[in-house]
């Protein structure tokens, strides 16, 4: 080990990093691009979060106080789009860029120039989307799902802004996914067989295949919205022989795999962190791989569970209900495997582990409400209420976002070379985990009691629950400023210098290089045992 460190240390002196803005604009280095993605995602997290604050402020009490209903709808729509396509997905791509080459012992991503492009078109996509909020008529106000004919006939020009920005985001994701697949399949160090890859690499490989399978379908669906709006086609207009419900079928054919695109990499992160802090190998590695693949395949067969109330024949409702319920099995396998990994380990609770454990518990709660939503007769009551809002925020915030934070706290010393302020990070964890539950747990009650989602004002019986939710929301929003502070402090290289392997139980090639990871790593592939 020590010789490896010496050898790479020597390299570090010849890093040849270009300096100035050009370094970032023209970079083809996977670590630089990873850093760009991560900062971009953090910025978008706060932009989307600010919109969530507007929403929660308006919903703090019944009546209209701060914003008009039309603007409220723009906020819910753009909040969703920014968080999904701007915060969660780029964060995962950033992590993939930083970690995958180091984890498989490759010098860089396979297609570095495409990598540069896939990042640098993203800011344009979000300029279009966010800029539309300031245009006449405002931004998209038809929900992130953009159901026709609300989007085609009543969206005004916001539909065009929406479609173009989604196209660019889609192209960016597809390029990122192609890069991951080629890197993983072609650039592994000799001896690194597929079944020896870290779980994070596996989950990302499967995610990348999902991305190239469904992002083009989304592109097709929104293109049809565009032609329906501007070029007189009637894909989704009954007058010309189309069917508005068909949009929902096509959209959710993309949409459900998309949900797994946002959670599979999380599974990979948690499968790296729990063994590290339990000081015990991941339990049931191969079953984890198969379970991930099974979830990905099943995700193509369940889309219509988002559409039970659109009026489907019974046979279709039963088919989609059964398929959806079956997904609980591989998901359960994963959770049991994590618990078995912890079992009789030697656990310590550093910040990454705290986030990973919170992930397992809170994601499971989101899984339970998901199972309840799968039951078609009950879904008729839950559908389009705050119960659904609670469900997908449990899987996306305490699921995806918590795993991203766990990953950041786990690998931040490797990225910056300095240990972050651990006390402050634990403060961030406890503030987040408390406030996030005050924020999202009461939403279950609001939904069950009958509060529809996407409304700017509500009946007085929902007032108390919404007030608690809003307080939780403001607290969660403010808590994230602590995260920003920790990250900035660490990026400014304040604090203790980090060892090449700051976590006792961590495993993987990324810990064999010094911290911060040199600009170029594994130009000679490492030896795989």
């Amino acid at each position, binding site marked *: 080990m020590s010789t490896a460190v010496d050898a790479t240390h020597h390299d570090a002196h010849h890093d040849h990093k270009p300096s100035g803005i050009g370094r970032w604009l023209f970079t083809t280095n996977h670590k630089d691009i990873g850093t760009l993605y991560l900062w971009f995602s953090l910025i978008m997290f706060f932009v989307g979060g600010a919109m969530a604050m507007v929403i929660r402020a308006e919903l703090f009490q019944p009546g209209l106080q701060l914003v008009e209903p039309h603007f409220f709808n723009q906020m819910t729509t753009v909040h969703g789009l920014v968080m999904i396509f701007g915060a969660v997905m780029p964060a995962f791509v950033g992590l993939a860029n930083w970690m995958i080459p180091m984890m498989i012992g490759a010098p860089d991503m*396979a*297609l570095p120039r495409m990598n540069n492009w896939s990042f640098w078109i993203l800011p344009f996509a979000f300029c279009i989307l966010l800029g539309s909020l300031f245009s006449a008529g405002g931004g998209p106000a038809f929900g992130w799902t953009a159901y026709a004919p609300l989007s085609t006939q009543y969206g005004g020009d916001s539909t065009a802004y929406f479609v173009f920005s989604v196209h660019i985001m889609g192209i960016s994701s*597809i390029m990122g996914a*192609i890069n991951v*697949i*080629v890197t993983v*399949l*072609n*650039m592994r160090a000799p001896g690194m067989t597929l079944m020896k890859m870290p779980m994070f690499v596996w989950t990302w490989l499967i995610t990348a295949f999902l991305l*190239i*399978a*469904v*992002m*083009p*379908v*989304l*592109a*097709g*669906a929104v293109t*049809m919205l565009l032609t329906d709006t501007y070029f*007189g086609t009637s*894909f989704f207009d*009954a*007058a*010309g*022989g189309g*069917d508005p*419900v*068909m949009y929902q*079928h*096509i959209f959710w*054919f993309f949409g459900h795999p998309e949900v797994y695109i946002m959670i599979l990499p999380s599974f990979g992160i948690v499968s790296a962190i729990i063994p590290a802090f339990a000081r015990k190998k991941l339990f049931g590695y191969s079953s984890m791989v198969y379970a991930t693949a099974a979830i990905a395949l099943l995700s193509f067969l369940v889309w219509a569970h988002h559409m039970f109330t659109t*009026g*489907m*024949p019974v*046979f*279709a409702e039963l088919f989609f209900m059964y398929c959806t319920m079956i997904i609980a099995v591989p998901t359960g396998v994963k959770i049991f495997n994590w618990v078995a990994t912890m079992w009789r380990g030697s656990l310590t609770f550093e910040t990454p582990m705290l986030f990973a454990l919170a992930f397992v518990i809170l994601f499971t709660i989101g899984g339970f409400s998901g199972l309840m939503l799968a039951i078609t007769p009950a879904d008729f009551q839950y559908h389009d209420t705050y119960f659904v809002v609670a469900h997908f925020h449990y899987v996306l915030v305490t699921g995806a976002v918590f795993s991203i934070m766990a990953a950041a706290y786990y690998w931040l010393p490797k990225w910056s070379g300095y240990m972050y302020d651990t006390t402050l990070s634990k403060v961030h964890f406890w503030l987040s985990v408390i406030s996030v539950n005050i924020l999202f747990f009461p939403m279950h009650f609001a939904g069950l009691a009958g509060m529809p989602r996407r409304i700017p004002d509500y009946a007085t019986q929902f007032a108390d629950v919404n007030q608690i939710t809003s307080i939780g929301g403001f607290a969660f929003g403010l808590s994230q400023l602590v995260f920003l502070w920790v990250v900035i402090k660490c990026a400014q290289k304040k604090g203790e210098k980090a060892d090449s392997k700051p976590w006792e139980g961590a495993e993987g090639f990324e810990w064999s290089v010094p911290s911060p990871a040199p600009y170029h790593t594994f130009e000679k592939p490492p030896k795989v045992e």
Partner: protein
Amino acid sequence: MSEQHQNNSILVKRLLLTVAGMFAFGFALVPLYDVFCEVTGFNGRTSNEAATYEMVEIDESRTIRVQFLTRNAKGIPWKFESSVKEVRIHPGETKVVNFLAANPTQSDMVAQAIPSVAPAEASLYLNKVECFCFNQQPLTAGANTKMPMQFYVDPDIPDHITTFTLSYTLYDVTAQSSQSFKDEQKETE
């Protein structure tokens, strides 16, 4: 290293092909959906083509209640209604129902009626021999018309369907109409 590059570019090409294929698949879902609906009666739309009435045995043991709904979409001021609200019919028996349409405006218009059946499953067993919904319906200013619809219910209709509703929504398609008489009108003006 060059071998590596070659491998990479082969894989990239394949992946790009997959992407293009999936983009095309998104559009292919449109006709696939139509075929799927036609086979399963998924969305309750009836066939756009005339059925030929084959001599089928009339099942007098059963009577199906067929209700008619007529609706105007936004922006079309026509009067549009069926001459009867509902009929009771034996499976296998043919029936003609007249629909009345009137254009009270001062301009010539073209309308298209869009059928829908509830429960959707019943659309599989509703056979229309003749229907005004197969074509766009032009109506000159102030004119009115009687539009016949001849249909029969397939005797294979399952026992649990005792009532179904056939609705027509009338849309103004003057602007998009292929059989527009706008041009003629301009000449006379």
